[in-house]
Structures are given as C-alpha cells and as structure tokens.
C-alpha cells in the first residue's frame, strides 16, 4: 500500500488536481447535482441515491441533487419524533472527516465554489484577520440549530422543523428554493415571509463573499465546523519540513483563511486549498499525497547517484 502512495507522490497526481482546484470544484458540483434536467422540470430527484449523503453542503431540495445533504439528513432524523440523534449520519461525517478533514470544503463543496467564484470579482478585498471571534459562531450554530433545537423545540406529535435548513442555510435558497420557484408555479405560490428572510441571508453572503473570502465557511457553516474538528486527525494532512522553513511568513500572508501554516499544520480553518504550497519559496510545505521538496530532491539524488 505504501508503494502505491509513493507512486502517486512521484507522479504528482494529486498535485495536479490541487493546482486545478477550480476544475475539481466544478466537477464535484456537477457530480453532486447530476440531474440537470430537473431544473427545467421544477421537480426533485427522489430515487434511491437520495438516501446517500454527499460530503459537501448541497441541498436535498436542489432539483439536480444526486444525494442528500448531511446537515439536512441529520436534522430530518433528529426532527422526527422517534430520534434525538443520528449515529448513522454522524458516523458518515466522521468517516469523511477522518479521511480528508476540511479538504472537502476546499475542493468538493458547491457552496464553497460559489463563494470562491464570487470572490474572483475584481474589487478591493477586505481581511477577516480581525474578525476571528466570529469563527466560534459556526460551532454554536452546529450545536444549537442543527442539534439541540431539533431535540428541545418540538410540536405536539414530538417532531420538529429542521431549524438550520429552515431559518439559516442560504444554499437551500440558492439551489432549491429559487430554481424550484422559477420552474414550478405551485411552489412559487407558496413563497412568503420565510423566503424573503432566507433570500436576504443569501444576498448578504453573496455581497460579503465578494469582499471577504468565504465568510460563510468561516463564520456560519455547521458542516465546516464539524469537519474542522478532524483536521488534526485526518489521514490527509499538510506537513512543513522544519529544515526547509525559513519562517518568512509568506504562507501566512498568502492564506485567505488566516492560517499560519508554518506554526500550525492542522488549523481548524485550513481548507487544504494548497495556495501556501505554491507560495512557499523553499518548498517546505507538502501534503500527505504530494512529496515535499526535500523528498523530491532526495529522490532525484538517489536516481542520479
């Protein structure tokens, strides 16, 4: 198995994927939303694959959705009168988190891609460095809106609404509410105050994403909050070769998630986008699937001698 990973590192396979992150994000968004015709039909896919969770934040009610949203699924289970927790869904999320940590945020989440694209719009960019306290909000949202409220605030039959999906998630409006309302007259007729509220949230994040980098991922996303807990223990990790690092601070300046890779390789906010790897002047930064510069040099020397 080790030989296989050595071979992958030599071929720079994942480095190539990492350098074409936009293409990977586009492909992931398409694979997560395969049923493109449904956007025109105004219906959603309800077949067997909908029982499987996708790794990123992708609404179940998106007409194109291939699978289910993990946050939505968790809330659906907790919201039924029979359960207060879902071991199955949390188990799947732990699996995803343990494999790659927040690499999912950086490469496989459609809403992450949406924010990345918006950020490309040429304007003055604002730093989130001084707004670090807002990052705790996503953990509060994870515990309170995704879990506790669903358990505590129940109706007469013992069930509850999916509070995060219903009152906060802008992805649901972008992917589900708006496309369905455009194509389906009955659904359009139901739009009211809740839609207005959610639309305002979506619009706010659209504007914020143009000036700040990934504000939703940093401050609100409960899925990102959950995956961040696994950055420290995931199989896929970032490494810094201390013998090569000259502590120039370039990685910290390049990182748009305000992570200082040279001091913390498992930071909660690191979405493993790889910008720091390219920025490092000495090649000190490497990932679990791409060799570090010193390893590559060693291999070169071994081949030559």
């Amino acid at each position, binding site marked *: 198995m080790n030989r296989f990973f050595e071979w992958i590192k030599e071929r720079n396979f994942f480095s190539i994927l990492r350098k074409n992150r936009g293409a990977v994000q586009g492909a992931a968004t398409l694979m997560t939303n395969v049923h493109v015709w449904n956007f025109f039909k105004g219906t959603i896919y309800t077949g067997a694959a909908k029982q499987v969770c996708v790794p990123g934040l992708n609404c179940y009610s998106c007409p194109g959705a291939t699978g289910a949203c993990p946050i939505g699924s968790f809330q659906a289970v907790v919201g039924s009168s029979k359960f207060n927790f879902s071991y199955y869904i949390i188990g799947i999320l732990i699996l995803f988190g343990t494999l790659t940590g927040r690499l999912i945020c950086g490469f496989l989440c459609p809403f992450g891609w949406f924010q990345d694209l918006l950020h490309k719009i040429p304007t003055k960019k604002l730093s989130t460095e001084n707004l670090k306290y807002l990052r705790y909000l996503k953990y509060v949202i994870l515990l309170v809106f995704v879990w506790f409220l669903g358990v505590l605030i129940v109706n007469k039959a013992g069930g509850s609404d999916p509070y995060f999906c219903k009152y906060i998630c802008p992805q649901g409006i972008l992917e589900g509410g708006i496309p369905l309302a455009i194509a389906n007259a009955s659904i359009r*007729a139901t739009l009211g105050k809740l839609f207005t509220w959610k639309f305002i949230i979506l619009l706010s994040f659209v504007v914020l994403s143009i000036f700040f980098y990934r504000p939703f991922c940093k401050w609100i996303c409960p899925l990102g909050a959950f995956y961040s807990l696994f950055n420290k223990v995931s199989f896929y990790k970032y490494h810094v070769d201390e013998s090569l690092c000259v502590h120039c601070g370039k990685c910290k300046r390049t990182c748009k998630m305000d992570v200082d890779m040279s001091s913390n390789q498992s930071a909660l906010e690191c979405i493993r986008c790889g910008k720091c790897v390219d920025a490092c002047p000495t090649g000190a930064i490497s990932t679990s699937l791409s060799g570090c510069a010193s390893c590559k040099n060693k291999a070169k020397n071994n081949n030559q001698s």
Partner: protein
Amino acid sequence: MKKGLKKVICIITAMLLLVPLAACGSKEIAANENFPSFKAEDFSGNKYTESVFKENEATVINFWYTGCQSCIEEMSDLEKMSAKLADKNAKLIGICTDAGKEDVDKEIMKILKSSKVTFPNLKIKEGEKMTDLIKSINAFPTTVVVDKSGKIVGDPIVGAINDEGQQKVINERIEEAISRNKKM
C-alpha cells in the same frame, strides 16, 4: 461538411433543452382533470372510494406524510377548517401517503390523536392512477379541491394553509366548486 454538422447538433441540443420547459409542474394534479378512482380505508375501518365526492358540495383533499412536520403542524388549523366546511356541505379528507405498514399506521394514529383530529384520514389500498398521482407530488402538504362530479378545481395548493393568503385561495376554490355544481 463539418461546420454544417456542428450547426445541426447545436440546433438539436437547443431544441432538446427547450422541450422540458414545456413540461412544468405536475401533470397528474391538473385543473379540470378527473380525480383518479381509488379504494381506501380510514383509521376506524370505514371504507372510501371516489364516490365520496358525490356526497359533498366540495371535497378538500389534504395529502401529507408522517415525516412532514409542516403537515402535522397545520392539522389543528385543518380541524378548525373542517368544522367550518360542514356549514357549506363540504368535507375535508386527509390522505396519508406513507400509510400501509403497521409501524407507520401506529405513528399516524399517534399523530392524529395528539392533534385531536376528527376529520377522516385515509390510507390508499388500491388504485394505480391514484398511486401515480401521489408519486408525482414532490412538496407536502399539498391540498386539492374536488367538485361534486369528481373534477379537480384549480391548481393544487402547495404548503401549509396557515396564513390568510392560503385561506383565501382555498375558499375561492371551494366557492368555485359549489358554483360549478349549481350549473350542472
């Protein structure tokens, strides 16, 4: 030759993309279509078929399922509506679309009890077209008004009937059903 072929492919693709646009919304629940025939049973053992439409000036059918919290939350409003409908000789009937298995039926009875529901709720036993209609519904609750002759009145109403706007729409449909009956 190659350029011409490219053009033809573009035109065909464009046409294929436009065709689905013409097919918006549910075809099965459409205004003026006949409500499909069915055999059903309520949770007290009474049997129902499409003949129930003849017995009322207007029948309001509310489709729901046990996992739909909005459906469960609107039940007390529906119960109040059911009482008002009786004055107009109209009837409210619920159809629980995931009924059939023993544990689901138990859950349904629990839900109906906790919401103090007295209007009949049905589980569909037979009816292929009925099953197709239910499969075509992708947003719950969906409410449909049917006139005396068994024809659907107006478009289906999607979403809980918990605000004035929705109430108004339902009342309009019921009035239309009643006036249609008079014309016949």
